[in-house]
């Protein structure tokens, strides 16, 4: 039981690390640090870096939160720690 919970927590941390890396890349990466590089790419009326900074990052944030909720609900059931 105790060992299972350790595994549960480690999987949770893995999910978090993955999702937070995406969170960091789309906002701080695409929107701030590499914005000028991405701005070389033009899609429709948007420069790509500018689009990530003012639109894209926000869409990705929303998706990330739902993906995490979905992953964790599944994980809770698998390790039998969900709320009854």
């Amino acid at each position, binding site marked *: 039981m105790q060992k299972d919970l350790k595994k549960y927590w480690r999987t949770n941390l893995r999910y978090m690390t993955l999702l937070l890396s995406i969170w960091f890349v789309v906002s701080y990466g695409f929107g701030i640090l590499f914005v000028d590089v991405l701005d070389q790419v033009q899609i429709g009326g948007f420069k790509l870096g500018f689009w990530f900074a003012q639109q894209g990052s926000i869409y990705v*944030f929303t998706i990330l939160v739902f993906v995490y909720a979905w992953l964790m609900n599944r994980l809770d059931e698998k390790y*039998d720690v969900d709320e009854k």
Partner: protein
Amino acid sequence: MDVQIWTFIIVGLSFALYIGIAIWSRATSTREFYVAGGGVSPLANGMATAADWMSAASFISMAGLISFMGRDGSMYLMGWTGGYVMLALLLAPYLRKFGKFTVPDFIGDRYYSNTARVVAVFCAIFVSFTYVVGQMKGVGIAFSRFLEVEFTTGVLIGMAIVFFYAVLGGMKGITYTQVAQYCVLIFAYLVPAIFISIMVTGNPIPQFGFGSTTTEAYGGGYLLAKLDAIHTELGFKAYTAGNKSTLDIFCITLALMAGTAGLPHVIIRFFTVPNVKGARKSVGYALIFIAILYTTAPAVAAFARLNMIQTISGRSYESVPAWVKNWEKTKLITIEDKNGDGQMQYLADKNANEVTVDPDIMVLANPEIAKLKPWVAALVAAGGLAAALSTAAGLLLVISTAISHDLLKKTFRPNITDKEELLYARIAAGVAILVSGYFGIHPPDYVAAVVAFAFGLACSSFFPAIFLGIFDKRTNTQGAVSGMIVGIVFTAGYIIYFKFIDTAANIPENWWLGVSPEGIGTIGMIINLVITWCVSRLTPPPPEEVQQMVEDIRIPRGSASPTASH
């Protein structure tokens, strides 16, 4: 009918709705007063969170600011939405499982120390007061501009409304009123945005219009490319290029994100859902509802920028539309023909520039710019008031809970009954409204400057303490308290120095590492994390039962509704 009458009707109806909801959702126990009984559905809580979060500043000022800042404005957009990802992944589910009422509750229990609790109480009160004063001022401005009543009368009306539903209904009343307020404010924001988008680009969805070509009347070509060209021509930096240093933008964005995740009035919202599952999902809903406004705002900013420059630049004063002259009367637009050529020059060069525009008017002027019917302008007034009132109410609740629950019940008068505690909570809410109303009417000069405080302090004090409290079992009282104190003192000291003591020195050359006072919270947070980690390792580990508690909040099973038992 003219705007005045429409405003009375629409604002009046929206207020009647809020009061009706307040009467329907009276709180009868401290559980209902503090966390709405823990029975709010994740969807409703998401909406309430969005209304709680989006203040008069988000509704009225943000698009205008972005309009004048161009790409640099992204820091507000990402900072005030990205914090919800941190909240969802790092804090909300665990705090919900912890299952008490307030942020100081968590700090006090996790760090088994009343000192830590009291430090947290004072941070919570200070951060919330800072914020609420700005809201009250916003209410006063909205009333005085749209209903043409005195500024003071406006604040008093706003105070009376908030008093009614916050004191009566507590968190329960506030939550359901905020759901209604969200609907009012988002509708009021989107209607003019959609019409402007159609007018400028022919595309009814602002988020797409933003990247489309402009209509014939605006000369065709991609909107953003056009703005860049106009900007360059007038001597400004291109709209899609940045002015601030990359490091500073990085720090400000991170300070806003971690600050958002650490603000007590945001965190407290996730105590109101029934379980951990609900908390995870509710953050997602909240972010959708916030994103609707936050992805529209930069589009509105770009449309407004183009409209403003094209209406003014190089035109003769006689030819400008009525909205320019209306706003000129309020002194928020000033025009001075410096070179006497009968035309208005809008230029980056301060000496030759003849037109100054206050960024705050951009959203408010939208209905007039798009020549919309008077009821739309009235709707915008109701939306601005909804945004200000909903945020003020959420903050006042944090203040009253901090006093009645954390200070009285948990620290100084542990023997009071639930009924007495509820009475104290109501009295505290009432007093907090009076005090914030007073400061709303007599705002200290530094209201604008203290916003940096609220985020800087939340991010350098609460965020690391809560984060490590959940993810690092080894963190103990000594570590957390020393980390919080050093984080706060460093951040507050830096902000006070540049914002109050030596304001003339507040230029990039003097900033430490080139980080502005707005972004210094990020450095404060890092210092806090390092100190907490090191001090915790050098002192004895926390007691067994605290470590057990940390184990326990990491799994959802057994999340009872927030208990009133202590």
